[in-house]
C-alpha cells in the first residue's frame, strides 16, 4: 500500500492523497487529520429532493454568489454482476445502501452528496427502449482530432464532500467494508450487486491544485496559483455561465426530474501553458482575446465576480472575427456560443485529479440531453473556426492544445425515486 505518511505534507495534500489511495487505512489516516464533527443525516429521508442533482441549494457560495462545489470526489464505475436484468431484491439492496449514506451524513457540501447514474449499456440489458424523453446515446468521439475509448459500465456513483474522510467512508461503506458510517448502521452495500470496474478520484477548490501540482503534466515549480480552484490557474463555473438545475432537468416522461451526465477523462499537458505561454495567451485562450487585450482578468479571475463576462464583452458573437484579427479564440468564448433560451446548456461539476500520476481532469457535466452536451462540445471544438481562419485545429483554439481526451461515457442520472437499478420504463409508485 502506498505510504501516506503525514510528516511535512499539508493537510490538503494529505487528504487528497488519502482519497486518491482509498481503503480503510487511508480513511483512518484521513479521519485523524480532518476529524470532522458532523451530525448524522435526517431521520426521515422523504424530504430529500427528488432530483439527485439538486446540489446548489445545499452547497456553499463564495462572496460573488458562485457555487463552491464539494472539494473531494470519488467516482466508482460499476459493473452489474448479475446476468440479464436486475431483480427486485437487488433494487432494494441498492436503495438501502444509498439510503444508508443519506442517513449517515447531512446532504450538504460538508456532509455528503451522492448521485448514481446509468449508462446506455445498462439500459440495453432490457427489451424495452428508453422513452423518447430521454436522450442517451452510446458515447462517441466529439471531435475529428480525438480518439477516446468509451466507458460502458452499468452505473457510476459520484461521491462528493468537502471532507475527504466523508467521501472515503461512504465509499468503504458502499463497498461493504464497513457496516456503520458516522455512527449510523448501514447493512446493505453495492458490493452485493456490483463490481467496481474503475475508480476515479479528484479534487477542486482553492489550494488543492497548488498543493498537488507535483504531477506529470504540470511543469516543475510552483506554477499553479494558490488561489486557483483548477490546475489551469483560473476560476471556472461562474454562476452566470452555468445552466440552472431547472434548465438541465428532464421535464417529461418517467424520468422527469432526472438529467443526463457526461463524464470524460481528460489529461492535461501544461508544460507549454506555464513555461512558454504568456499571460496574454493564457487569458486569451481560456477566456477571450478581448479579456487579454483589455486586461480584464486579475489573477485567477476573482475580479470577474459571478460571470466570465462573455456576452458582456461581445465574445461569442465575435469568435470568427477574433480568429481573423487576433489569431486566437478563447475556450469560454467558443463554449458560450452554445445557448438556448438565454442560458448555457450545461452545469459543470468537473474536478482535477492526479489519477495515474498524471494531471487529469474528470469532466463531469449535467444537461437535459446528451445532444446539449454535444452542441456545447462542438461549439468548444471550434472546428468551424479552424476551418476558415488562422486559428489552428488545436493551437490558439481555446485550450484544446493542452487537453487530450482519453475516455468518454454518457449516463442517465434518474430522479431519486428511480435511482436503484431502474428499468427503461419505470412504473410510478403512487405516493
Amino acid at each position: 500500500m502506498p505510504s501516506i505518511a503525514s510528516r511535512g505534507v499539508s493537510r490538503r495534500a494529505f487528504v487528497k492523497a488519502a482519497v486518491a489511495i482509498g481503503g480503510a487505512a487511508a480513511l483512518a489516516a484521513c479521519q485523524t487529520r480532518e476529524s470532522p464533527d458532523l451530525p448524522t443525516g435526517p431521520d426521515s429521508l422523504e424530504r430529500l429532493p427528488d432530483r439527485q442533482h439538486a446540489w446548489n441549494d445545499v452547497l456553499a457560495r463564495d462572496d460573488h454568489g458562485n457555487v463552491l462545489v464539494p472539494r473531494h470526489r470519488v467516482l466508482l464505475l460499476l459493473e452489474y454482476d448479475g446476468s440479464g436484468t436486475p431483480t427486485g431484491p437487488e433494487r432494494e439492496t441498492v436503495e438501502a445502501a444509498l439510503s444508508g449514506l443519506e442517513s449517515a451524513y447531512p446532504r450538504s457540501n460538508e456532509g455528503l452528496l451522492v448521485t448514481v447514474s446509468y449508462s446506455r449499456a445498462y439500459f440495453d440489458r432490457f427489451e424495452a427502449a428508453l422513452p423518447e424523453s430521454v436522450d442517451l446515446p452510446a458515447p462517441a468521439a466529439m471531435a475529428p482530432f480525438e480518439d477516446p475509448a468509451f466507458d460502458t459500465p452499468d452505473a457510476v456513483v459520484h461521491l462528493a464532500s468537502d471532507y475527504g474522510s466523508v467521501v472515503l467512508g461512504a465509499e468503504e461503506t458502499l463497498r461493504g467494508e464497513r457496516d456503520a458510517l458516522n455512527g449510523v448502521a448501514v447493512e446493505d452495500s453495492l458490493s452485493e450487486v456490483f463490481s467496481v470496474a474503475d475508480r476515479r478520484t479528484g479534487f477542486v477548490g482553492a489550494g488543492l491544485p497548488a498543493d498537488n501540482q507535483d504531477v506529470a503534466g504540470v511543469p516543475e515549480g510552483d506554477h499553479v496559483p494558490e488561489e486557483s480552484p483548477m490546475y489551469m490557474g483560473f476560476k471556472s463555473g461562474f454562476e452566470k455561465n452555468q445552466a440552472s438545475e431547472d434548465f438541465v432537468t428532464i421535464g417529461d416522461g418517467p424520468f422527469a426530474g432526472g438529467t443526463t451526465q457526461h463524464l470524460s477523462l481528460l489529461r492535461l499537458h501544461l508544460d507549454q501553458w506555464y513555461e512558454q505561454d504568456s499571460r496574454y495567451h493564457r487569458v486569451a485562450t481560456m477566456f477571450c482575446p478581448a479579456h487579454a487585450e483589455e486586461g480584464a482578468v486579475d489573477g485567477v479571475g476573482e475580479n470577474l465576480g459571478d460571470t466570465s463576462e462573455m456576452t458582456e464583452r461581445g465574445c461569442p458573437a465575435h469568435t470568427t472575427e477574433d480568429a481573423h484579427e487576433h489569431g486566437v479564440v478563447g475556450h469560454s468564448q467558443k463554449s458560450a456560443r452554445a445557448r438556448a433560451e438565454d442560458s448555457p446548456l450545461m452545469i459543470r461539476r468537473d474536478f482535477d485529479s492526479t489519477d495515474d500520476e498524471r494531471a487529469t481532469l474528470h469532466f463531469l457535466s449535467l444537461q437535459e440531453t446528451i445532444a446539449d452536451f454535444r452542441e456545447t462540445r462542438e461549439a468548444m471544438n471550434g472546428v468551424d473556426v479552424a476551418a476558415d481562419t488562422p486559428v489552428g485545429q488545436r493551437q490558439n483554439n481555446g485550450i484544446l492544445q493542452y487537453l487530450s481526451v482519453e475516455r468518454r461515457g454518457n449516463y442517465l442520472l434518474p430522479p431519486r425515486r428511480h435511482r436503484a437499478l431502474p428499468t427503461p420504463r419505470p412504473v410510478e409508485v403512487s405516493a
Partner: protein
Amino acid sequence: MTGSGRGRRGGADRSRLRRRAFLGVAGAALAGATAGCGMLEQQSVGTPAVLADRPDRVYVPSHVEGMEMAGMAKTGRYRFALSYSYPHRFWNVDGDRTEKVAVQDGDGVHLMLTAWDAETGRVLPASNQRVTVSQGGETVVDRSLWRMISQNMGVHFGDNVPLAGEGTYDVTVAFGPVGETLTGALAGALGERVTASLSFEFSQATLQSISIEDLGYRSGRNGAVEPMQMEMMPVAGTPAAADLPGDHLGTVESGDVVLVATALSRPPAGVEGTGPYLAVSPRTRYNGYPLPGMSLSATVPGAEGPVFDDYLGAALGSDLGYHYGTVLEGLQDAGEVTLSPGLTPQLARHEGYETAFFGLPARTISL
C-alpha cells in the same frame, strides 16, 4: 510501422544533411558553409545572444544548427520524420505579439516533426498533432508541438522538450485529420486521424555532434539561411509562379511575403462551387516557404460596389501547394484584385523570422 531508420549525423550520412550555402546580402555563397566542413563549426558551445538591433525583416540569424534524424514512420498516405537539435529559443506569436520562449532548465533537445503526403510529397504544415515520447514505459513528452518555421527547416512542428537521458525512446505520433481544404490530387485524402510509432537511440554524444555555426558578421543582415537538403524528407516549399496551374495574375511583395496569384477557370477538385478560382500562394522571401496561419483577404471592385471582399480560405493543393483561395465569380472580368494580409502568419518563429511578416501592407494586382 516501417523505418525507425535513423539518419546518423556524421560520416557518410553527413552529406544527406548537406546545407548548401547562405544567401548573403549580395547573394554570395559563403565559403565553408557546407555542413561537414569544420571551419565554422563548433560543438555545442554557447549560443550567441539575440542580436541587439534586429531588422523588421527576414534576417540572417546569429547562428544556425544542424539536426539529427531520429526516425521515420508511415501510416497510409501519411509520412512522418522526427528529428532533433539543441534546445533553442524561439518566439510564439499571438496576433501581432511575439513572446520569446527561452530554453528551460529541463529542456534536452528541440524536437521536430515533419509530416507529408506520400503521393504528392506535399508537406502538411499545420494540422492537429500530438507527440508522445516515452522511455522504459515512462512518458517524458506528451504534447502538441508548435507549428513553426525556421530558415533551414521550413515549416514544421517543434518544441523544446525534456529529453536528456541516454537510451532508447519510443515515440507515438497522433496526426490529423488535415484541417485545411485539400485540393487536386489531395482532395478526399488525409481525412482521418492516424497514429504512427517509431523508436530511436539517443545519446549526448550524438546530440553534441550536431553542428552549430556562428554566422558572425552576416548576422542581422537581410537574407536567410538556405533550406537544408535532405534525401529522407521534403522541406515544405511552394511551386514557382510559372509552375502554378491557371493564369498567373501577378506576383507582388508585401513586406517579406511574396504573394503569387493565379486564376483557375474552375475550382480544383476538393473545392465546391462553379466559376473561376482565385488562388494566392504567399511565400517567404528568399526561401519560398509556404505561410500557413495567416489571414488573407481579397477585394475585387465592381461598378456597383465590390464584386468580392472577403477572406480567402486556407487550402493545400497537390499542384497549388499551400495557398489561400476562393471561388470568385466575376474574376474573369475584374480589372484588379487587392490582396490584404490582415494577420501575420500565426507560426512560432525560429530566429531570423521573429521580426518578419508583421504590418504587411495591402497590394493591388492589375489584371
